Structure formats: structure tokens, C-alpha cells
């Protein structure tokens, strides 16, 4: 019925009312459009219908039962009286009737015996009730008994001797009971209706209560307060589960937002320096270069500065791409050991060049479900760091083993390591420890390694190698077939 309505007012109002008014708008909604009311109403209707069906059938079967009991009693009476007639004739019937009428237990019983001419022979009715014409069928008629008018269930029969016998029961009390029962049912029905209405309101309030928490939270978040969470009832019901899911989603959004904020801060601070340097160099050359060689030199160095900035950008974009999780689509089952052996070979020469020893322990196979190129880059970053910070003559260890359900790749060096206090922050973008501040690098290497680990549902642990750094990169192994 409501679906046929044209677009709601709100739709037309939106242009001039800003979104923040949504909460208020909700209150002025027509009742039928409230999900709570709709839900409660349908519940109420089903409830009332069930109650009505139950009450009606109860009422009907009770009334039916009582009626049948009376009919049985009348029937039994008739059978007995007929036997009296067959055995002892009319006189016996009259005697039996008088006997019955004298017995006060049968106050409701009604008898009338008339002869073929309609003269009363015995019984407690003043006269043959008007309207009773057919024999052997049920009648419910008003009768007069001792001056009282009453209602009776009656049945008449023709005796073989020509008399007519009328047997019945006064059903005034029964009708009264009937009415009382009906009134009780109506009363109960009204009570059910009231209770139903109350439960409608209750359900609506309950509904609103749950929705209110969620909508209040989302509204606050839409207005920029990302710290809000939907309160959980702890009951473990569906709403609780929904609240948990929403909170989980909000956590993830917050993490991503933090990442974006971190990156934009970092861009503001850390990229400003090399850009300033390049700009200064160019401006200085434009103003003061005394020879074409000096100019050439300045331009070349500025180009190198720009290349450095581009490298930082690329690393940032790559981390962002990894964080977004899009590369999971390209995951494959792959053995990492050949790749690691290539890395060993590639970096061994560099280590030797610098007077370092690269010790390697790679135990194949190392099956993972992941992105080989990304893991390769992560390991390369760890090795780059180890090479950069190791004093000559030291040993760098690269090992990779299957440790339980995890593939564990460890790069350990004997350099200055990372101070305990800095270890947690070491994987933040652009974080650089005091010792590293004056070496070349962007401060993005470990951030990328951590992002790769996270993408693979793994971890990057930075430990003390006493002295030096022990970086443990572990990701879940793919142990399907064995």
C-alpha cells in the first residue's frame, strides 16, 4: 500500500538540508516506514491470528460438547421411557414421568405427555410448545414452565398408542454458560490485542535500541570521529555479531586511514628535504654557475636528486599497493628455495666485495601460497640493510627453513642493530633510527618487508642478534599434499 506512494519528501528535501540532519529526519518518518514497526506489526498480526483461532476453536468445541451431552441425556431418557411404554403401556409412562418429576435432582428436565387430542396427561410443561410439529427431531424453543418462561432443548415422539411424548432439558443455564464463555473469550482476545500492541511497542523499542547504537556510531564516524565503535552487548546474538563485524571493518578503515595520514605526513616532511635540495641546486646553478661544466654538474646532481625522490615515490606506491591487498589475486603456490638461492648468489658477490661473509642455509622445499616477486623484494631489502650496516669482516647469515606450519626466512647481521625502544617503530614508513639517519636510504625498506609479511598473513619480527639485528620473516607454508 505504501510502496505506491511517490518519492518520499526527504528525497526532495535533500538539496537544501545537509546530510547531518538524517538523524532528525528519521523521527518524522511515517510510522509504517519504520522497520521496527513493520516487524512488530507483522509479529502482532500473526500472534493475534493464532490467539483468535485458538480461542474460537476452544469455544466452539466446548459449546459443541455441552450441547451433545444434553442431547445424549435426552436421548437416554427417551429410550427408557419408550421401554416403559412397551412394557407397561401409558400408565407406566405416566408413573415413570411422575417419579422423575418428583426427583429434585432433575430440576432441568422437561417432560410432557399428551393424548392423541392434545390433552395433557402428565409432565411439567403447561402446554405443548408452539412450533414443535415434527416428531424425532431437535428443537430449541422457548417454553413456559410453572409460569416461568425459559429456553429448552426438546425432542418429541409419537408413542404407538397415539400419545405424544415430549422430552427436553432446560438449557437456560447452558446458554448462560455459553455466553459467559463467549464473553471470557472476547475478554481474552482484547487482552491479547492489548498485549500484542504492547509487544509491538516493545519490539520497536528493542529494534530502535540496537539500531540506535549502530546508527549513532556510523553518524559520528561520518562526521569524522573515527574512534567511535558500536558497543557490544556481549550476548553473542546476531546483533552482537553485526556490531563485531562493523567494528572490525572500522578498525581496518582506521588502519588504512592511519597509513594514508602517515604517508601524507611523511611526504610533507621527508620529501621536502630532497626536493628543496634539488631546487636549490638548480636555482644556484642558474644564478651562479661560472662555467658550462659547473652548470652541467649541477644539473646532473639535481637529476640524481629527482631520481631519488622518484624511488621513494615508487616504494611508497608499492607499499600502498601491497597494503590494499590487491596482489593477493595473483598468488600462486611456489617453492621459494630456488629464488632464495638466486638471491644468495646475487648478494654473495656484493658481500665479498665489501669484505663480508654471507653464510647461507636454505633447506628446500619451502612451499608457500604467495607472490614470489614480493617475497624476493622483501628478502632483498633485508639483505640490503644487512650489507649497509655491517662492519667489514663480519658475517651475514641468510637462512630459510620450514618451521612447523611457517616458512621462516632469517637475515641476521652483526651491525649496530636497532635499539629496543625503536624496534616497534622500525617498520613505520620513513622511520629511521638515530644511527641510520646519516646513511643513504629512504626509511621504507622495513616498512615494505612488514607489508609483504602482512599480505601473506605472516609476520616480521626484529630481534637482537647480540650484537646486530636478526630479522625473522615468517609466512604460512602451503602444506597441502603431504
Amino acid at each position, binding site marked *: 500500500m505504501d510502496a505506491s506512494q511517490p518519492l518520499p519528501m526527504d528525497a526532495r528535501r535533500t538539496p537544501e538540508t545537509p546530510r547531518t540532519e538524517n538523524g532528525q529526519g528519521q523521527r518524522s518518518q511515517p510510522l509504517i516506514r519504520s522497520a521496527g514497526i513493520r516487524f512488530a506489526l507483522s509479529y502482532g498480526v500473526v500472534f493475534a491470528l493464532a490467539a483468535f483461532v485458538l480461542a474460537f476453536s476452544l469455544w466452539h468445541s466446548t459449546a459443541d460438547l455441552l450441547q451433545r451431552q444434553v442431547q445424549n441425556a435426552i436421548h437416554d431418557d427417551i429410550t427408557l421411557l419408550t421401554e416403559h411404554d412397551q412394557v407397561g403401556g401409558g400408565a407406566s409412562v405416566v408413573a415413570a414421568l411422575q417419579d422423575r418429576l418428583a426427583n429434585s435432582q432433575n430440576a432441568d428436565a422437561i417432560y410432557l405427555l399428551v393424548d392423541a387430542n392434545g390433552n395433557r396427561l402428565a409432565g411439567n410443561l403447561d402446554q405443548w410448545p408452539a412450533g414443535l410439529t415434527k416428531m424425532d427431531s431437535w428443537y430449541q424453543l422457548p417454553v413456559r414452565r410453572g409460569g416461568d418462561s425459559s429456553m429448552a432443548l426438546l425432542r418429541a415422539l409419537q408413542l404407538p398408542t397415539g400419545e405424544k411424548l415430549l422430552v427436553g432439558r432446560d438449557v437456560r443455564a447452558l446458554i448462560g454458560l455459553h455466553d459467559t464463555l463467549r464473553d471470557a473469550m472476547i475478554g481474552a482476545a482484547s487482552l491479547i490485542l492489548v498485549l500484542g500492541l504492547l509487544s509491538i511497542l516493545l519490539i520497536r523499542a528493542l529494534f530502535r535500541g540496537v539500531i540506535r547504537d549502530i546508527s549513532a556510531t556510523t553518524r559520528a564516524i561520518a562526521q569524522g570521529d573515527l574512534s567511535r565503535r558500536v558497543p557490544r552487548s556481549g550476548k553473542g546474538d546476531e546483533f552482537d555479531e553485526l556490531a563485531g563485524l562493523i567494528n572490525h571493518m572500522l578498525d581496518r578503515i582506521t588502519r588504512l586511514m592511519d597509513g594514508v595520514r602517515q604517508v601524507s605526513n611523511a611526504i610533507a616532511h621527508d620529501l621536502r628535504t630532497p626536493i628543496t635540495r634539488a631546487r636549490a641546486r638548480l636555482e644556484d646553478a642558474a644564478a651562479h654557475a661560472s662555467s658550462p661544466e659547473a652548470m652541467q654538474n649541477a644539473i646532473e646532481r639535481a637529476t640524481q636528486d629527482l*631520481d631519488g625522490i622518484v624511488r621513494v615515490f615508487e616504494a611508497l606506491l608499492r607499499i600502498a599497493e601491497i597494503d590494499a591487498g590487491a596482489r593477493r589475486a595473483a598468488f600462486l603456490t611456489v617453492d621459494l628455495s630456488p629464488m632464495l638461492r638466486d638471491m644468495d*648468489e*646475487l648478494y654473495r*658477490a656484493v658481500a665479498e*666485495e665489501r669484505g663480508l661473509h654471507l653464510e647461507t642455509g636454505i633447506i628446500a622445499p619451502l612451499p608457500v601460497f604467495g607472490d614470489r616477486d614480493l617475497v624476493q623484494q622483501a628478502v*632483498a631489502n633485508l*639483505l*640490503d640493510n644487512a650489507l649497509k650496516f655491517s662492519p667489514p669482516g663480519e658475517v651475514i647469515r641468510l637462512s630459510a627453513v620450514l618451521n612447523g606450519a611457517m616458512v621462516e626466512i632469517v637475515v641476521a647481521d652483526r651491525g649496530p642493530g636497532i635499539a629496543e625502544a625503536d624496534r616497534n617503530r622500525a617498520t613505520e614508513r620513513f622511520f629511521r633510527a638515530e644511527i641510520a639517519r646519516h646513511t643513504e636510504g629512504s626509511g621504507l625498506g622495513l616498512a615494505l618487508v612488514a607489508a609483504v609479511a602482512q599480505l601473506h598473513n605472516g609476520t616480521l619480527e626484529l630481534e637482537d642478534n647480540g650484537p646486530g639485528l636478526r630479522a625473522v620473516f615468517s609466512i604460512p607454508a602451503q602444506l597441502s599434499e603431504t
Partner: protein
Amino acid sequence: MRILVVEDDKDVAGFVVKGLREAGHAVEYADNGRDGLFLAASENFDAIILDRMLPGGIDGLRLLETLRAQDNTTPVVFLSALTQVDDRVRGLKAGGDDYLTKPFAFAELLARVEALARRGKGDGPATRLAVSDLEMDLLSRSVRRGTQKIDLQPREFRLLEYLMRHAGQVVTRTMLLEGVWDYHFDPQTNVIDVHISRLRQKIDKPFEQPLLHTVRNAGYMLRAEEA
């Protein structure tokens, strides 16, 4: 060589065209996809440098797909600001032969274009490679210079093979990383320089005439001195 540049940014295009002409190539230029496709389909080029995002309704991908659908196999280098791995994969799937992200060094572009253009004219699988008196036998996997046999590690052999296949051309560090180590990003350490210098120890050091040259700001080149 005849090279087609399809790029809408005038500054970038001007820089690329000028650079290619200085390197001795004949260059045609289009600043939108429609003209680019017309030129590429109607004339013969040794290589095409193609921007991914182009005005004029036909972007780089569509242009290339159309071209490949016409059985045109001219080598294509994509030049793009789209740096995600997916973009790269899509570019190569559409029939691109190489993918260079912006910003780029001209030396890198030149080296890649020349390498591709030459590969396009490849004369079948060779079994022997030779530069001056340095010879490589690909079947027996042996290398000799003059009369002297040179022992190489497997990776050094592949590095030298790559250099010899591109003899007379500049080969950048990234090309070597990709071509020899299958490594698709820039390591912070000078890994390539170290491996080149080791190779140099073996093939050049004992001889009078050096063959493996460093090209400043670009990479390396294997060539006989007089060339």
C-alpha cells in the same frame, strides 16, 4: 631505425623525439591515439614508443590491440604513469614487448627501444656468438678469447650471453636485472656493478683490449674498441 612516438605530453614527446634523433634514428610523432594508429598501421617502423593514456578516444591499449589484430608485430614499448603490477601485466598481455614507467631516464628508454628493434630483426637462434676475439659457444657452453679458454660460473655465462646478444648496444642495470636475474625492482645495493666487475676480471683483465665498457649515466656496453 624508424621509430614512432605516440605521446600526448608535448614536453615529454619533444624530449624523447629529440633524443632519438640525436641517437641517429628517424622519428615520426603523433600526439593522439587516432593519428598514432593511422601512422602505425600505414607505415613500417622498427619500434613504437606508446603512451598508455592518450586523448582522441583510442588509448594506448586499444591502439596496440587493434594493431596486433592486424598481425602487425612491430615491437612496442609502453611508456606509462600507471605503475601498478596489474597495469604492467595488462600492457604486456595486450601485446606490448616492454613497459617503462614514468618518470624515466632517456638512456633507459633508448637502450630498451634499440634492444627491442634489433631483436625484431633477429636472425634465428644462434649457436655461436662473437664480439671481436671473444667467442661463445652456446651448445658446449664454453667461452674463449683469442686462444685462451675462459671459465665462467653459470650466472656469469648468462650475463655474458645477454651482453653479447646485445653487443654494440647500451644495456642498463635494470635490463640486466630483469634479463639475467628475473628481478623486477631496483635493489639499493650495486649488485649489478659487482657482478659486471667480476665478469670484467675474467674476460678483460688478462687482455690488452677491453671489451666491456661502462656507459656513464646509462649502463654497460660490450663492443670492440674501434667500433
